[in-house]
């Protein structure tokens, strides 16, 4: 009975989250990006006739009014609408039909869950066993040397992109030794052959992060009083670890496992696309590529539904594992603000949606053909950003030095060679990114060296392609090395050449003699990392990838930070309904699986650096906010805050002088830890084709371009290796530095000398 009422209350709390997800899908898919635009995108962008659009919408039922159908009678006024037919029906698990081939989405879901689970279930179960066992084994290694060694190895494993493991293991086991099929699928249990590879890869790829996570948990447990009691009883260390430590780590482990459940069902996008597994991950990716809005919309809802079920399961896991947790929880009355908020949001959306309908139609009619992307993107935002960044780079250390955190960081830096080295490398990468951000357009000259005039403005014409300080520097370096190049594009060759080669990598047929030979390069011996299939210099591409990685790594957190800080502190400080709403908001956002949110964003707003920063910031915001809220909650209860209050200090002052400064360390540590995760995410997303647009330099794009080259004969490995090596060269020091920063700032870790 108690369990039942508890369950009911949890449902009453979780259901508004589902409604929220539903509203968000509506907001994204029908307000921000109305069906007319979707039709235009699906039909191929430019030069689509209005009749075509109308037909497309009619066939798929998007021609209804959005919220209120005045033409119909009775209840149909509300149901014969897009909101009801396309959005509210998701609650009934009616996912509608594909926009492209009109297949029902639900049958497809049911069919594809199997293959997804066949890969992810064993991967999760074996991963849990393997990584826990490893972490337990490592916990027994005592002594500073061994510990530091293991830790360094794990950090190194973590600093390697998952793409590397996938491509490497697939190439080695599949193509090299032919132990596993390279890709494919079979029905029923015969699929096991195709499962081995992906499972193995996810075991290896997860090792670094998972083992470190478990190790940190164990480390914390090992310091507890009850572990000392267990040792004082004379228990062998193996029993202390396997019973006492493991038992109390179960709660966070269970949380992590359950939180991963939706991803089990959704499948791993990367693995499925690599091994051509007909699971849900591949389904979503295909839908994205075909601009199938209906499927992506359905998947966003479905994924969130799974997350919410996962949350419910977490509650049960807690109940099972931890006897201290009562079936208490929030009273139903406390949920009122959340419900009010949801209802209010629905109404606002309805009204805005209804009112904007004619407006949008009018705009559509007036400007039927989108003049899409501007021909040349403006450069000033980048340059302004670069100037601001320079100012920040100079001011930040100065500001930091005035805080306790800054002093501790300085002490750590002064005493640790490793930290100095890591910081130097990271700063080097930031410097490259900065140099690559200061850009201008060169004046075009003809072959005779004369300035070309723009026929329209009669001013000197400017190059389409922007040049950055970095480009200029690299060009002069090349010239110094003896290559006659005037602009970056001149560096290209016809096609592949090996590092430092003097001739092309592949034979070409001489048309006059019919003889097969290797052509000499334009710049023989001048390509330190060779050239790729299109003939671009690999070194140049690798260097140009730095800006994207660093920008996303830093900007994203900076974008998320103000929201997280503001909302988190407000929730923790004021409690009550503010807290309820903030908690609701971040649970809502984090209920939508990140990749799906990114996909939806890219589908609706296109690819690009900014889009990625915004959407990653939107997803990253929640974790930080949760942290801030928890910490503020703790701080509020501390005696020094109470005494400040007793002295009559106002809230604003307490927040500014006592609370925010005490959050500095969390912010810094989080910034450092998030950086490498974001760099990895960017590469993965760009690889999947949902990151930056392919024209931008990015390691993910590089990997995508080069991934098929391993199956060439002879193998062309250098473009891939260059991308992975650059990523590793940035991530390893960044991760090590983040660790050092955490060590220096975390009050729990004590002040290491």
């Amino acid at each position, binding site marked *: 009975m108690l369990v039942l009422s508890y369950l009911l209350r949890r449902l009453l709390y979780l259901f508004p989250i589902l409604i929220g997800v539903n509203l968000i899908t509506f907001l994204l898919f029908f307000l921000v990006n109305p069906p007319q635009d979707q039709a235009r995108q699906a039909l191929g962008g430019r030069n689509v006739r209005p009749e075509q659009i109308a037909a497309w919408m009619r066939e798929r039922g998007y021609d209804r009014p959005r919220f209120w159908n005045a033409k119909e009678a009775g209840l149909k006024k509300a149901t014969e609408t897009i909101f009801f037919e396309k959005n509210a029906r998701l609650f009934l698990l009616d996912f509608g039909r594909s926009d492209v081939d009109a297949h029902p989405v639900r049958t497809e879901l049911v069919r594809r869950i199997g293959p997804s689970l066949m890969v992810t279930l064993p991967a999760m179960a074996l991963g849990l066993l393997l990584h826990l066992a490893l972490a337990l084994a490592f916990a027994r290694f005592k002594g500073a040397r061994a510990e530091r060694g293991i830790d360094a190895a794990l950090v190194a494993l973590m600093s390697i992109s998952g793409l590397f493991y996938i491509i490497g293991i697939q190439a080695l086991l599949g193509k090299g030794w032919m132990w596993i099929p390279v890709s494919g699928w079979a029905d029923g249990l015969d699929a096991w052959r195709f499962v081995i590879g992906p499972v193995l890869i996810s075991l290896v790829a997860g090792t670094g992060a998972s083992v470190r996570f478990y190790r940190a948990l164990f480390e914390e447990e090992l310091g507890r*009083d*009850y572990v000392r009691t267990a040792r004082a*009883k004379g228990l062998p260390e193996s029993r202390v670890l396997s019973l006492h430590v493991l038992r109390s780590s179960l709660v966070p482990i269970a949380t992590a496992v359950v939180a991963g459940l939706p991803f089990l069902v959704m499948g791993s996008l990367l693995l499925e696309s690599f091994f051509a597994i007909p699971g849900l991950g591949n389904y979503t990716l295909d839908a994205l590529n075909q601009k199938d809005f209906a499927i992506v919309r359905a998947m966003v809802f479905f994924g969130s539904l799974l997350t919410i079920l996962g949350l419910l399961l977490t509650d049960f896991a807690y109940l099972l594992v931890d006897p201290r947790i009562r079936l208490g929880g929030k009273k139903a009355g406390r949920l009122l603000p959340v419900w009010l908020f949801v209802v209010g949001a629905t109404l606002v959306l309805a009204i805005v949606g209804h009112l904007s309908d004619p407006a949008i139609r009018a705009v559509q009619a007036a400007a039927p053909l989108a003049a899409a992307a501007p021909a040349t993107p403006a450069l000033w935002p980048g340059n302004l950003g670069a100037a601001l960044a320079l100012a920040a780079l100079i001011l930040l250390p100065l500001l930091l030095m005035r805080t306790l955190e800054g002093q501790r960081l300085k002490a750590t830096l002064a005493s640790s060679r490793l930290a100095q080295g890591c910081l130097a490398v990271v700063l080097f990468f930031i410097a490259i990114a900065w140099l690559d951000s200061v850009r201008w357009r060169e004046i075009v000259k003809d072959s005779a060296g004369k300035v070309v005039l723009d026929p329209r403005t009669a001013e000197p014409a400017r190059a389409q392609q922007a040049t950055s300080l970095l480009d200029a520097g690299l060009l002069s370096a090349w010239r110094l090395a003896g290559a006659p190049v005037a602009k970056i594009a001149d560096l290209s060759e016809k096609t592949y050449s090996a590092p430092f080669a003097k001739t092309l990598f592949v034979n070409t047929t001489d048309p006059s003699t019919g003889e097969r030979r290797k052509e000499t390069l334009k710049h023989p011996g001048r390509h330190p990392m060779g050239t790729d299939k299109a003939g671009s210099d690999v070194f140049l591409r690798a260097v140009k990838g730095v800006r994207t990685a660093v920008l996303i790594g830093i900007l994203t957190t900076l974008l998320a930070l103000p929201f997280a800080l503001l909302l988190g502190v407000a929730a923790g400080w004021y409690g009550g309904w503010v807290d309820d709403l903030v908690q609701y908001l971040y649970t809502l956002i984090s209920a939508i699986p990140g990749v799906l949110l990114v996909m939806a964003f890219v589908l609706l707003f296109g690819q690009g650096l900014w889009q990625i920063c915004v959407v990653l910031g939107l997803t990253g915001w929640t974790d930080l906010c949760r942290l801030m809220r928890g910490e503020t909650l703790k701080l509020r209860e501390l005696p020094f805050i109470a005494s400040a209050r007793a002295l009559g200090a106002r809230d604003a002052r307490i927040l500014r002088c006592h609370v925010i400064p005490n959050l500095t360390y969390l912010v810094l540590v989080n910034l450092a830890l998030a950086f490498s995760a974001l760099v990895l995410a960017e590469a993965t997303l760009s690889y999947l084709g949902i990151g930056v647009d392919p024209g931008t330099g990015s390691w993910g794009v590089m990997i995508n371009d080069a991934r098929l080259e391993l199956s060439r004969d002879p193998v062309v490995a250098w473009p891939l290796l260059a991308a992975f090596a650059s990523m590793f060269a940035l991530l390893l020091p960044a991760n090590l530095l983040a660790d050092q920063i955490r060590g220096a700032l975390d009050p729990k870790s004590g002040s290491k000398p």
Partner: protein
Amino acid sequence: MTPLLRVEDLHVHFRSVEAVAGISFEIQKGEVLALVGESGSGKSASALALTRLLPERAAEIRGRALLGDTDLLSLAPRDLRRVRGGRIAYVFQEPMSALHPLLRVGRQVAEAVRQHRPGVPAMKEAVRLLGETGLPDPERAARAWPHELSGGMQQRAIIAMALAGEPDLLIADEPTTALDVTVQAQILELLKTERRKRAMAVLFITHHMALLTSFADRIAVMRHGKIVEQGPFLEVISAPKHPYTRGLLACVPRLGARLKRFPTLSEVAP
């Protein structure tokens, strides 16, 4: 007569801090030695160092701790485990955090029985021990989760756990500090009874001098990681030689004495 435990020139370093700066003392069989001193003087560090229970990475221990004629500080881990709980048992200050929150009380006691007295039916013995320490319904207490017991009951459970290995020496590190006054007296009474019944030596750590009357045989006074004075209990408190000891005694409230306020240590023992 050879002492039960002889500690010679024990040092404990935490990185740069010297928590224990070379102390020596002895405990005879069945004797109660009180270790007193202000907070941070190194009492807990000394007691934990004896069976190397300090965090291995942080603490560096030097000196000798002879139990009979084996040096605990150079003992192999295997043999050390036999000493922990089997010959030297601990009762800690915070009963709540000393019990594992996710294991039932009986199981935690039984674990100690099983470790040191193989062949004895562990669960039954655990219940018996819980009863012996004065828990009203030992059967139920054994099945309870730690958080379902009160602080005093938790401390009894911990004492039961300590007694499970039938130790020769019980180290009680401020066992009553976290409890309220009436419960303090009960726990102290329990320790006294058990000690008499088992002829067990006790190293009793406290900074509450008043608890020691009619309990301690000898006393050692610690300050800044050193033992500044030690000797038979009555001798030391009736004629303290070291000014610090006098200071500590001056801080004990006495019935009927009229004071404007209690002196602080820095005033009486510069």
